[in-house]
């Protein structure tokens, strides 16, 4: 069970910059570490993260070993219509996660 948090303001004015904040619980294994038996722990980072606003992609991130565990991301987009902000991500091990939030534009 992984936790992903997505924060979008519930309401916004049309044409306004909207702040989106994302936090995901993920170990972000670098692939450079070894376990207690000396075996390499395979690299496992969030390889692809996509954020869509009413179906249109507004943000994409491809993260590698340089990003710390439990990544925090923040970006802005311009509010146009009421609708849904959806977050989907997949990691190197194939695990998927998602979160969504609604926004009302007046």
């Amino acid at each position, binding site marked *: *069970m992984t*936790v992903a*948090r997505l*924060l979008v303001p519930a309401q916004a004015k049309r044409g306004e910059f909207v702040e989106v*904040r994302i*936090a*995901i*619980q993920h*170990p*972000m294994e670098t692939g450079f570490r070894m376990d207690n038996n000396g075996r390499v722990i395979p690299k496992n980072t969030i390889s692809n993260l996509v954020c869509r606003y009413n179906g249109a992609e507004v943000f994409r991130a491809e993260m590698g070993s340089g990003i*710390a*565990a*439990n990544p*925090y991301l923040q970006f802005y987009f311009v509010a146009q219509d009421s609708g849904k902000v959806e977050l989907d991500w997949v990691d190197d091990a194939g695990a998927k996660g998602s979160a969504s939030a609604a926004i009302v534009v007046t």
Partner: protein
Amino acid sequence: MRREAAPRAFPSSLGIGIYANGLPALRATRAGQGHTWSRAEGWGGGTFIRLLVYSFTLFCLAVTTADAAQPFRPDPLKSGIDFVGAEVRGLQQDDFASPAMLWATRGEKLWATPAGKSGKSCASCHQDARVSMKGVTAKYPKVDPGSARLVNVEGCINICRTRHQQAEPLRYESDELLSLTVYVGLHSRGMPMAVTIDPQNRRNFERGRDLFYTRQGQINLACTHCHDRNFGRKLLNDTISQGHGNPYPAYRLEWQTLGSLHRRLRACFFGVRAEMPPAGSQDLLDLELFLAWRAQGLKVETPGVRR
């Protein structure tokens, strides 16, 4: 107010006096004799002087016993957050950016998830944690009335699981146990630490206190040497804090994950190259009680963020 570290072999009230008032005569005499007595004999062994010295020793004992419940405490108490930089402080204050809050979110889900044969969740008995768990963490560790053993919040959650949910206890330091502990602690955030030392837990308190003042490991340091005498100074690149447990379970940037107070304490044992007691062991529980007493009045910061 600088104190000598007391050897662990002082089980009696005399041992308490060592930390309590630091009278040189008492500090130098291991069992209340020796130095003082030999000097009295050196003066000719007059009965009057003997009596005088004897009554003075008794007086010292009385004074130290009266003060016994007051080992040294840093004054003013400062939370570890006062010893970190602005970025880390900002991370702790921002409930969204703080990675520790991910565990709290997960804890909130687990709170309402049924576990074990009983099919009960935490919420089945305790209902809304915002009400039932308010101020709970601030009063732990406590003696569990059922088993008469000292338990911390982690231990209490596991007691609930085995006794009421008929579920397997969660492994110490597992994400599930940490998440629930953080979620419970969240409802004490901002409240002053308020353990009480009573006849039930006094023995644990004394053991924890003795451990705090006992030199450990190859480096041969006691907790007191860093956290009472040298807080605010540098240890390599790090600023030494007063060593309070108020933010735990906390997210440490060094760990890249959330960890319990016992994990942090084990790191200190490792640092002085001492044998590390297992997480959840009696030694660490007793130490946790002493630390909670020592931090009385400091605000609970669970879940904190540290370097």
